[in-house]
């Protein structure tokens, strides 16, 4: 007996060890089979490779309304990131339930994700694989890109927290590992500092001096990255700067009776974002107040239309006339209101006698015919914030860093009407359990009846004996 007991304990110890080894192995290499329709939670090979580089704690906080399907999907996706790298820790915070936490992180929009790694922090505009993996890649790069913002021509200020200011935009840049730096090319020697990863001209209110235009032209020719936001209301003519790259500024005021905010036809809602350019990625609509039209040379393959207005829209070249209805002289839509140019060329340079070297210079340009959509008053409207963040990321070569394969779970609407709710409750809460109880009662009745029925050739047991037998049973 003692020997069999010893053998049992030995077998239990061996089985326990095997279980621990099996679980550790499964934890370390955790392959999975995704049976969901959209393979929503299978991360791409790129993301998997990227996550192997995370070797310090990485915190991910998703700000979402708790309890909804979005929060559930976010937790499933973030749990998958954690399964692939155990340095990753995540949480879903409801900004309405935890306003202090949301304020501490400067959250102004739902679905914002804050990622922190080794003292650095970036935000992702959505809880989707592409956004989160790109944000992780930015964190892993470990450097902050300088983004130069031009001043000196009446541009709104980065420190202005009023509705026309750019303080929110400054915060957005800082939260995405960009260091905004203001430069004034109207003073001193006009030249873009080499530290600038991109230059932003955000709504000049007066014409740019010739020296500044020359400096920017030279910068673009040397592989510069420039964003120009302008409108006809500012009275500037950016064409000398833009036309060599296949984009022209038409001016005028774009009016869109089909898609506008409220009754103001000039407060245009842009829903046609036809480009595959990463600037348009994840953006479904934009709000551009008082935009102007652009002209793009589509024959030049390097130019793409980022946003255009509806076919019912038109350009009013003379908005001061007072009439907003389509009239003679107006240019019918759709009107291009945002465009991008991406021009690459091989440059051969001579480093010394008989020594030549070649390198690729790549100029990138984003032009928007509206200079107010990124101000504090409009940045959080529709997809404006994401469009701006995408544009800066594209200009600084931080776009499309991760090709996401997972798709968010599809929308499967099922409106729970009172009638349907009543039906569901009736069947699942009452009918099914009721049927089970009824079957049990029926069976008990049948058994009792069988007990009462006399078996031929057998005497009926006395009531006391029957009671005893039932009790035994």
């Amino acid at each position: 007996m003692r020997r069999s007991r010893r053998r049992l304990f030995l077998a239990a110890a061996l089985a326990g060890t095997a279980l621990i080894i099996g679980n550790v192995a499964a934890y370390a290499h955790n392959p999975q089979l995704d049976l969901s329709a959209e393979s929503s939670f299978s991360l791409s090979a790129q993301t998997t490779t990227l996550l192997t580089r995370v070797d310090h704690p990485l915190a991910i906080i998703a700000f979402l309304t708790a309890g909804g399907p979005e929060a559930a999907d976010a937790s499933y996706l973030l749990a998958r990131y954690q399964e692939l790298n155990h340095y990753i820790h995540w949480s879903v915070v409801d900004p309405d339930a935890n306003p202090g936490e949301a304020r501490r992180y400067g959250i102004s929009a739902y679905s914002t994700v804050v990622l922190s790694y080794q003292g650095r922090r970036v935000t992702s505009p959505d809880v989707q694989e592409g956004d989160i993996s790109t944000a992780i890649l930015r964190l892993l790069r470990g450097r902050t890109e300088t983004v130069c913002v031009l001043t000196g021509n009446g541009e709104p200020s980065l420190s202005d927290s009023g509705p026309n200011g750019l303080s929110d935009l400054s915060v957005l840049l800082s939260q995405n590992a960009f260091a905004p730096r203001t430069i004034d090319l109207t003073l001193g020697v006009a030249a873009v500092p080499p530290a600038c990863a991109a230059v932003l001209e955000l709504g000049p209110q007066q014409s740019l001096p010739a020296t500044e235009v020359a400096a920017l032209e030279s910068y673009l020719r040397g592989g510069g990255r420039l964003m120009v936001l302008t409108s006809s209301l500012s009275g500037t003519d950016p064409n000398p700067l833009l036309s060599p790259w296949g984009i022209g500024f038409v001016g005028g005021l774009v009016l869109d009776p089909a898609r506008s905010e409220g009754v103001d036809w000039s407060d245009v809602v842009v829903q046609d974002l036809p480009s595959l350019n990463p600037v348009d990625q994840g953006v479904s609509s934009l709000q551009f107040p008082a935009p102007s039209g652009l002209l793009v040379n589509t024959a030049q393959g390097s130019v793409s239309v980022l946003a255009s207005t509806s076919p019912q829209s038109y350009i009013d070249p003379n908005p001061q006339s007072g009439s907003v209805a389509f009239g003679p002289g107006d240019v019918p839509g759709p009107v291009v209101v945002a465009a991008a140019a991406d021009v690459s060329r091989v440059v051969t340079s001579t480093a010394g006698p008989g020594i030549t070297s070649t390198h690729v210079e790549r100029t990138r340009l984003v032009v928007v015919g509206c200079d107010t959509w990124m101000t504090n008053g409009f940045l959080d409207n529709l997809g404006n914030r994401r469009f701006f963040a995408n544009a800066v990321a594209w200009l600084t070569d931080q776009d499309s860093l991760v090709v996401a394969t997972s798709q968010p779970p599809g929308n499967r609407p099922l409106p729970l009407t009172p009638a349907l709710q009543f039906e569901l409750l009736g069947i699942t809460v009452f009918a099914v359990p009721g049927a089970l109880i009824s079957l049990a009662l029926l069976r008990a009745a049948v058994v009792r009846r069988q007990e009462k029925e006399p078996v031929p050739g057998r005497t009926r047991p006395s009531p006391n004996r029957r009671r005893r037998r039932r009790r035994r049973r």
Partner: protein
Amino acid sequence: MARRDIRSIWLSAYGVGCGAGFLALAGVLLVLDLRSDQARLDGWFSPLFVVVALLAALFSVRSFAEEERTGSLEILTTMPLGRGQLVAGKILGTSGALMIALAITVVCPLMVALVGNPDPGPILTGYVGLVLAGVAFASVGVAVSAATGSFLVAASGSSAILLALWFGGVLARGLSGRLQTVLAYLSPYSHVTGFLRGTLAVADVVYFLSLAVVGVLATRLVLEARR
């Protein structure tokens, strides 16, 4: 042995009462889940895992504690059965009874499929998860039931263990470091996420099978100690 236990659970007023309560609760959870106006059932499966743990605790008390109370355990131990066979039969019996209850809940996804268009993948994996978790929970419950002759102690003991395991994972989320990793891994709470989202992960399957084996070993050791 397993067939005898399944019959004794489902032909008793106790088993039918527990089963009917479980099914009614599953119906209420379904309606609460569908309030998101989406034909998706992950929000139904998630609390159902906890309810299955409680049902496993209630069903498993009949395996040993009830037998001991009625005095039939002695007859069982004298039957020409090995201890291993006895334990396996008891766990299979409790798991089988649970599977019958789970099979009846298929009415809920069927009703949703009739009025909406749910993704079948997460429903399939949800049921795979419930079956695996049900066997693991039943195994733990049978081990607790073998350790005591009291029906009440067995029911409350196994419920407490299973709920502590579950909520240990919830608490672990507030911790950090190795302790958090170990606590989270030991909790079934961390292992149901994959099933809810429509994925079958090896670690989750291995975890629930391991928990079932731990229950078998514990039951075997408890019976040996009580001999």
